[in-house]
């Protein structure tokens, strides 16, 4: 395995033709104690890279997306050939795809509040130009619907923010994946899950799977994060659909604020996304097993959560000051019970921050200080003086979200690799109510009678509730 794809993506992302003067060696040469004499044997390649190398790729400019075409003896045959073409060009995720025909993409674009040619940005590291239409193509391939497009576009905007770190996170060996937390009424309107199985899959609330899969297809097809070629993600994780879910705003205890309000200052009722990068997930059995009082049950569970967090997750150094060490998901029934006995969002974060600090002798034992010493952020480097060492600068760095099924046994920790937490307001087109009505009609055709309520004239808020 080599880094050729990563390098080509990197130079392409800088606006150069996607090639470079490179001398490549097997990965074993880059390990401690390796034999590096091949460098000497191939010195001429280094010299030629500085003197004779020329880019073989002609200058090109951004233009309209290219159309592909297949012919088949039947629709089934053509569909099969289209999927084969997508896979052989490394544009798929291994699962069947909807070919993004003009008709399907035009249909998806009904969900756009911006012109189809609007440039959102360049998707790192490859630097593929990302327009509203590019997002619609990915959503079409992922089996999405028009009403999902506003959430995807907001997530892409957050992902492409230069402060998000996505240019490095896309290629890094740790394999971080984006987690998109949605707040506001749009979550229910498009059937985005906040309850049982909110991290998916869920055919009853399928929006998260399509939106997350479309984002992943953009990461790979436009951003160049092809496993082992454009991204060094050793194991990968959540690579089919990322993680897209809604906070259970109805499940928030009285007085608690939404994640969007706490982290980004968005007013209640605002449709928004919040994008965090995570590297892994851990289920925490937090409920007691015997005759604990409510207070003991809550406190024991909090200790277990803090114990899971108290780990030298060195990837999280990237977000030590401004980002997050991770997302702690509390089920709504747990949040309510804890609130009833006096816990608040602030006191929960304070407890987790204080009790997830790591004694410096344990940090030294793990060789962790070396990574802190070379961090680019001076505040992070200075943190090495702290003993015990906090996993983030302040309690507010910890993302606390209320979501999940109505069951008290578990919490869920998504460990972070997130330099920042990026929020964006979701913009919907003026015709959005019509799109929801069309979606409801489609559900009725498939026997979902709850959608009848919408068509019977209930207002959207009532229907969504």
């Amino acid at each position, binding site marked *: 395995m080599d880094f050729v794809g990563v390098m080509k993506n990197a130079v392409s992302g800088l606006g150069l033709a996607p090639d470079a003067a490179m001398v490549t060696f097997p990965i074993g040469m880059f390990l401690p104690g390796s034999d*590096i004499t091949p460098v000497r044997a191939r010195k001429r390649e280094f010299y030629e890279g500085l003197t004779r190398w020329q880019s073989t790729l002609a200058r090109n*400019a951004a233009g309209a997306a290219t159309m592909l075409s297949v012919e088949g003896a039947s629709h089934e045959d*053509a569909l099969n050939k289209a999927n084969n073409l997508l896979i052989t060009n490394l544009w798929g995720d291994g699962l069947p795809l909807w070919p993004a025909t003009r008709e399907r993409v035009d249909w998806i674009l009904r969900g756009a509040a911006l012109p189809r040619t609007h440039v959102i940005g360049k998707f790192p590291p490859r*630097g593929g*130009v990302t327009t509203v239409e590019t997002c619609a193509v990915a959503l079409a391939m992922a089996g999405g619907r028009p009403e999902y497009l506003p959430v995807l576009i907001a997530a892409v905007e957050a992902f492409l923010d230069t402060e998000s770190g996505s240019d490095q996170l896309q290629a890094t060996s740790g394999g971080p994946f984006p987690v998109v937390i949605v707040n506001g009424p749009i979550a229910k309107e498009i059937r985005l899950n906040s309850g049982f199985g909110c991290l998916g899959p869920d055919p009853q609330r399928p929006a998260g799977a399509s939106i997350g899969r479309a984002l992943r297809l953009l990461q790979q097809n436009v951003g160049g994060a092809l496993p082992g070629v454009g991204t060094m993600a050793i194991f990968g994780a959540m690579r089919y659909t990322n993680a897209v879910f809604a906070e259970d705003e109805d499940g928030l205890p009285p007085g608690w604020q939404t994640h969007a309000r706490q982290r980004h200052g968005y007013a209640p009722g605002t449709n928004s996304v919040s994008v965090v990068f995570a590297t892994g997930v851990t289920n925490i059995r937090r409920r007691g097993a015997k005759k604990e009082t409510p207070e003991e049950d809550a406190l024991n569970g909090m200790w277990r959560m803090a114990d899971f967090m108290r780990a030298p997750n060195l990837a999280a150094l990237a977000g030590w000051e401004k980002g997050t060490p991770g997302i702690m998901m509390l089920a709504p029934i747990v949040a309510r019970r804890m609130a009833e006995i006096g816990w608040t969002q602030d006191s929960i974060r304070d407890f987790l921050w204080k009790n997830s600090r790591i004694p410096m002798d344990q940090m030294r034992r793990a060789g962790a200080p070396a990574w802190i010493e070379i961090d680019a952020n001076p505040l992070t480097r200075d943190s090495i003086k702290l003993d015990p060492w906090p996993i983030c600068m302040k309690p507010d760095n910890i993302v606390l979200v209320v979501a999940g099924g109505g069951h008290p046994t578990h919490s869920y920790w998504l460990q972070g690799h997130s330099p920042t937490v990026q929020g964006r307001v979701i913009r919907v087109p003026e015709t959005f109510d019509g799109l929801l009505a069309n979606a409801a009609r489609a559900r009725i055709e498939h026997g979902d009678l709850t959608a009848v309520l919408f068509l019977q004239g209930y207002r959207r808020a009532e229907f969504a509730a």
Partner: protein
Amino acid sequence: MVTLEFYDPSGTLEVTQQHAPRLASLEGRRIGFVSNEQWQAYRMLPMLKEMLEADFPGVEVLPVDTFPQGNALIGNEETAALVKNSGVDAVIIANAA
């Protein structure tokens, strides 16, 4: 026959700058390193420096630590300005990570 036409999902690329022109010769030139300090760079780059100095009369190869090192530093504008202002004729960037 059924024809199915659909979008290429890879988007478009925009080439906004050209690669730097190559040098006619390395003799008498000034060469720098931009190192991410990873992947045995601390052994490989000094080896390259030694080879360049042995093979090209009058070449000046700057020490590996002349410019900021590390993945977090080598890509920023400050490092690029330091490299540009140093008067080097070429740089070798290593090692990929």
